[in-house]
């Protein structure tokens, strides 16, 4: 396995660890050690399957603004083809996109747009800060540039480079895929934000737990 894995912290000294989900021993990411023991067998497999399915079919929303767009074109075009990792299909509507790729500098005038696009993306969604300007504002430390997109929206993967070579982008995508694989994916998880004023039918549907047929027909 690649050597850029985080060092594995043994949970309890030399006590043998719990069996791993997929992969060999030294690839447990630090974050997920405790979590795996707590969820049941069925959820673990479902989470694994969903993680595998989601990581290999990432639809990206290319939020392209600046020079990184040139390297984005190279990463998408024939030679450094991102299609080999399943992330080739750019969806320009946040409804159908999984990954928000912030490609290029985010300036202060762009932040409301970025925030709105991120909020309108449907779950499960991830964010990749493509290039130094999206990660930390780059060398534009002035009144106009936001010092990193993570001051506005949470970011999952930071790809350094100004602009990053396409290989770096693919490596960033690989890291994101590892993260998705080891994330916990729940089925049937639904939450409604308090400020949403649903119409009566939708509310009735949500509150009452109805028979399977009722749910199916959406009564």
């Amino acid at each position, binding site marked *: 396995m690649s050597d850029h894995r985080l060092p594995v912290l043994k949970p309890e000294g030399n006590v043998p660890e719990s069996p791993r989900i997929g992969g060999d021993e030294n690839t447990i990411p630090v974050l997920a050690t405790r979590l795996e023991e707590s969820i049941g067998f069925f959820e673990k497999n479902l989470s694994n399957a969903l993680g595998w399915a989601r990581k290999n079919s990432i639809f990206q929303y290319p939020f392209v603004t600046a020079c990184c767009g040139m390297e984005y074109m190279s990463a998408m075009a024939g030679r450094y083809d991102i299609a080999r990792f399943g992330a080739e299909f750019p969806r320009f509507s946040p409804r159908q996109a999984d990954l928000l790729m912030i490609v290029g500098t985010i300036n*202060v*005038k762009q*932040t*409301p747009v970025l*925030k709105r696009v991120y909020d309108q993306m449907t*779950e499960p969604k991830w964010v990749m800060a493509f290039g130094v300007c999206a990660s*930390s504002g780059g060398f534009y*430390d*002035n*009144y*106009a540039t*936001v*010092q*990193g997109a*993570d*001051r*506005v929206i*949470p*970011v999952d993967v930071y790809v350094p480079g100004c602009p990053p070579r396409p290989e770096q982008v693919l490596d960033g995508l690989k890291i994101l895929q590892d993260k998705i694989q080891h*994330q*916990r*994916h*729940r089925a049937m*998880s639904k*939450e409604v934000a308090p400020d949403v004023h649903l119409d009566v039918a939708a509310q009735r549907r949500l509150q009452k737990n109805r028979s399977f047929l009722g749910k199916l027909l959406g009564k």
Partner: protein
Amino acid sequence: MSQALIDLVREKFPEAVVSSHSHRGDEVVTVRRENLVEVIGFLRNDPQTDLKLLRQIAGVDLLTYKTEMTGGAALASIEAPAYDMQRKPRVEPRYYVSYNLYSITKHHSLRVRVELRSDDVKVPSITSLYRTADWWERYVYDMFGVEFTGHPNLTRILMYPEFQGFPLRKDYPVRKRQPLVPELDFPDLVRGPGPGPGGAGVPMSQTHVGRQNVDPSTYD
């Protein structure tokens, strides 16, 4: 070769020309504000000069031209404004706007300059002569706050309407950001303990990795 242009302008508008000089091959003529439109109109429509292409309208703030301290970026003060109006004396004339004209058929160019005092920052607009002047004048207004009287819609072009102040003025600090969306304020992780918006001297361990504003449930 276009020294003739300056003489032509001097001879046509003797009282309008304040001064003129040529530096490294560029001819610049400084004109009084009142007959700016007249001079540029003449330069544009006269077949002999035929300066039809308005390349650029540039603005410069001469506040710290004399007293700007030397030294590379490392020595520049980051947060404090470059020029403190109270302590240092005012500079007059403070701004100048330079109109860069070029003639495609005659292959010569001329720069017409107008100098403005800091308390009366108004220049007549030349959108009636050149249609491209519309955006350039909005750019100079947006960056320096120079009012172009008679401009059809003098609003900010690059900065957002809620922005206070004029960024390219010398007394506007480099890093003074006015965020539109409430920014998550965490110290500059990359630059370490230097003076960042979040305050200086926060040890590395307490900085976080951009995850503070995410409620854990979405990251199950």
